């Protein structure tokens, strides 16, 4: 895995914008309706989720050295 995904769940309102814009189906909503990472391996660190989240609840970086 070359990417690091940080969720600030206390900010997430489960709007699904990140899920909808993720091109690799990395994200989903859990039973409480919060964003959760369901397939981290597939993440390409495109940053779409972070760019579009209206609640600043998800952050993605390429792993250092990767």
């Amino acid at each position, binding site marked *: 895995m070359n990417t*690091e995904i*940080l969720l600030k769940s*206390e*900010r997430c*309102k*489960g*709007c*699904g*914008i990140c*899920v*909808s*814009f993720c091109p690799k189906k990395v994200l989903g909503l859990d039973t409480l309706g919060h964003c959760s990472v369901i397939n981290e391996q597939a993440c390409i660190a495109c940053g779409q989720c972070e*760019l*579009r*989240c*209206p*609640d*600043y*609840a998800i*952050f993605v*970086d390429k792993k250092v050295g990767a």
Partner: protein
Amino acid sequence: MKERTYEKYFRQNRLPHIWCPGCGNGIAMKAIVQAVEMRGLPRDKTIIVSGIGCSSRASGYMDFDTLHTAHGRAIPFATGIKLANPELNVIVITGDGDCTAIGGNHFIHGARRNIDLTVVLFNNTIYGMTGGQASPMTPLHKKATTAPYGSVDRPFDACNLAQAAGASYVARSTAFHVQHMTDMIAEGISCRGFAFIETVVQCPTAYGRKNKMPDPAEMMKWMRDNAVMKTAWDRMPEEKKADKFPIGVFHRHQAVEYTEAYSEVITLAQEGGK
């Protein structure tokens, strides 16, 4: 994880913000602080002024000197601040109702005077805070609690209005085009004069639900599919323009700025009105 330097501009203990899941206001608020950072504005010389509405709640989350004023009156408060201390950077956050309904006169006269403010209109085309009444910017035939059969009132184009009234800089962007939005705001900050930026934002709750678009991501995809960059818009045949709208910079014209004009009045008065 790299530090997100724009986070320092938020009052961390106030987050999460009050806005509904998927509300576009959060996207526009982040674009403003990123534009402030891009322009390197000192925090103690930057004032955020807002009116009343969901959009105007933004000032409460931004870690600057902020003023949450009365409905429609953000521009007059901002005018007072700027005149009292012209070296301040004054950014106004307003809604489509706040700016073009109750505050419509303040808006056109702020533009007419060409006072150096950066006015960011969060346009969700509805009165969000009060539950979805039609605003002067609700598109034709769209539904609102006050227009259950669809609005027949012709909407304002706030960008045309700002330009006609005398603004120095006029631009539009959307919550989908978030980097473009940041650039549009940053350019407005650099302008010495009345800078107006309309940011189209989604209100899934009060607007989307009534208009068959309750999903915020779908509303953003609608922006992606219907906003057209100005250069392409200008070349577009009329018949293809239906339902589409232009984004980008519409107007740049450096006219005399109001606090500069007013400084002459101050000098004259100090010389004893000669």
